[in-house]
């Protein structure tokens, strides 16, 4: 038995309780073959906490909410952030296991590869934890939707705010793969457009870099006012920790954590993370609805991982997908991936996590983007109380205008 197939088997076993959990006696249930959702993500590596168990829980919440209208099953697999592994799993899911929609995806490199496959097989891919804006740009597809956030949104929200605050020269520390490159490119564009200057950049091997002090010193030597961290997960937390240690922030150089999840702040502790700014499209403590969905996702959770925007996205995307499937009928929805994506684009989205929104022709899900500042330990009043809201961008301002993306679906 190959490693991959064993993982899928384990994933399937992990998903069993979900399927059985759906069979609530006495509840009216929809008939027909169930919709099959494959949650493909990093379940064991550096991006586990911002996806992982909470993603499974979030998807289950959506499936249960839609249970009166349509049947759905969940399978789970770990792609270990490797495109080859991810594509193999997705291929088996599509060809053999009857999976209709692949969810989450995380690493940009995996999402780009699986998007091509979903198009070839006429299935659906919804990326909820993926960053690269290429998914709705040159790599856009009629079978893919990009939820939650992207590199353009982060670059615009965080990047512009830093330049406005006087940070007009930048040095990038970039994770050396598709995601890091896209984030650096999008941020650099904003900095230049706002009249800023790029002093240099360094590309760090991914995964496997733990000591960033050398790169931080190079950044410091460039005399840039802002160090842009075009990385994520433990790379970001290590950079922030070590920048504090080497007194870089004390010398007036600002850190711009271009992609920082609340799970990273949780890991760093407020003592180290206080004062950093970051962008997100969901924070659990925005309003009653966001608080309620966070509570529902964390019901029964044994860990202490806060609900990230990726988790909220898994809930929101699954909910909207199943709504569209319920309207079309399961048989039609299973038969044609492109058709259900079109239906999803035609329907406005509404859910507790992101409020009201829409999906654009290029596959971009639109909702507001928020700029947050990390609280000081004194300001924090309870568990996961980490952010204060600095600024809200309207959906149309938050994301890249469709005309600039170069998506072929829009031109034709």
């Amino acid at each position, binding site marked *: 038995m190959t490693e991959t197939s064993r993982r899928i088997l384990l994933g399937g076993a992990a998903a069993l309780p979900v399927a059985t959990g759906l069979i609530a006696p006495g509840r009216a249930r929809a008939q027909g073959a169930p919709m099959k959702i494959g949650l493909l993500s990093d379940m064991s590596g550096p991006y586990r906490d911002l996806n*992982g168990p909470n993603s499974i829980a979030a998807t289950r919440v959506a499936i249960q909410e839609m249970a009166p209208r349509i049947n759905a099953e969940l399978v789970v697999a770990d792609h270990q952030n490797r495109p080859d592994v991810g594509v193999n799993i997705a291929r088996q899911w599509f060809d053999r296991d009857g999976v209709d929609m692949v969810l989450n995806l995380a690493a940009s490199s995996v999402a780009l590869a699986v998007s091509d496959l979903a198009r070839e097989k006429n299935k659906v891919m919804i990326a909820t934890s993926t960053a690269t804006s290429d998914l709705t740009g040159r790599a856009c597809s009629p079978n893919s939707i990009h939820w939650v956030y992207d590199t353009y949104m982060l670059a615009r929200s965080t990047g512009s705010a830093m330049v406005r605050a006087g940070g007009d020269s930048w040095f990038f520390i970039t994770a050396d793969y598709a995601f890091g490159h896209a984030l650096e490119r999008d941020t650099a564009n904003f900095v230049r457009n706002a009249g800023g200057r790029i002093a240099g950049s360094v590309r760090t*091997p991914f995964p496997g870099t733990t000591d960033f002090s050398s790169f931080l*010193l190079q950044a410091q030597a460039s005399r840039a006012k802002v160090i842009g961290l075009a990385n994520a997960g433990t790379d970001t937390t290590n950079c922030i920790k070590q920048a504090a240690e080497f007194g870089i922030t004390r010398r007036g150089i600002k850190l711009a954590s271009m992609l920082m999840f609340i799970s990273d702040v949780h890991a760093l502790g407020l003592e180290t993370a206080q004062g950093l700014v970051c962008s997100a499209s969901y924070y659990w403590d925005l309003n009653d609805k966001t608080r309620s969905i966070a509570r529902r996702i964390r019901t029964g959770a044994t860990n202490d991982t806060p609900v990230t925007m990726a988790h909220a996205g898994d809930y929101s995307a699954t909910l909207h997908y199943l709504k569209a499937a319920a309207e079309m009928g399961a048989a039609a929805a299973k038969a044609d991936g492109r058709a259900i994506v079109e239906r999803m684009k035609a329907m406005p989205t509404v859910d507790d996590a992101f409020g009201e929104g829409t999906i654009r022709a290029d596959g971009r899900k639109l909702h507001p983007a928020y700029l947050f500042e990390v609280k000081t330990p004194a300001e924090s009043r309870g568990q996961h109380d980490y952010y204060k809201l600095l600024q809200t961008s309207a959906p149309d301002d938050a994301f890249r205008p469709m005309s600039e993306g170069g998506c072929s679906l829009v031109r034709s």
Partner: protein
Amino acid sequence: MLEFFETITGIPAPLLFGQLLLGLINGAFYAMLSLGLAVIFGLLNIINFTHGSQFMMGAFVAWMLLAWAGIGYWGALVLAPLIVGATGVVIERLMISRLYKLDHLYGLLLTFGIGLMIEGYFRNEFGSSGLPYRIPAELSGAWDLGFMFMPVYRGWVVVFALATCLATWLVIEKTRLGAYLRAATENAPLVQAFGVNVPRMITLTYGAGVGLAALAGVLAAPIYSVNPQMGTNLIIVVFAVVVIGGMGSILGSVITGFSLGVIEGLTKVFWPEASAVVIFVIMAIVLLARPAGLFGRA
């Protein structure tokens, strides 16, 4: 002199010195970890692939001592290696000791499997993004060296690692216990015939090697993110260090550890993308030219 450096390298001298110093600091971790591996391999002939997880356990135990028992960094520096070393003793007694008669490969596979299980367990319990651990107040702050800002804690790591390496070397080369150890490496049955309890010595040696890994883990806790995969990232490099230095050579692993740290540090300036590969390139070259390693005996 400084201008000379800048002319030939095109890199500002302050940056270059900074990188050399950082390389030494990383080298200190490589040296401490490869030292433990060398000690274990020298006596047990076991290629201890659990070492990375034991390094990680050291950092986690330090965190647990602080979070659950209120014992700070200095206490952890003593207690964590003892606790993790004790788990090593248990693993050696229950499992590894059954494989001494078999080929190296079996030990490698067993320890590799144990390592994966330990890592998986910690990931399940504590998640992947890591836990906060602060630099102790006595060692926080930094010296301004002019060409760089040198955190006191990093300096402490280098000094402490050097002292530990020296102490280990002294124990093995200059004490009676070390003499027994070295003798048992050469011919265990003969040493046993003289009334030395060789199995117990082997168990304790494994425990000590594991303790060294945990000690490095405690040192690493305040500067790296304390997360379950912190050992995996480091251990592959450390194995390359051990291979380059020569399996089982204690002095070799220490010298190679520090020098490869420096080489890696310099690569980060001149060609950052290659910094994850440079050590393996050196390993390949050394294996081709001197299969026993730079300091090993063929």
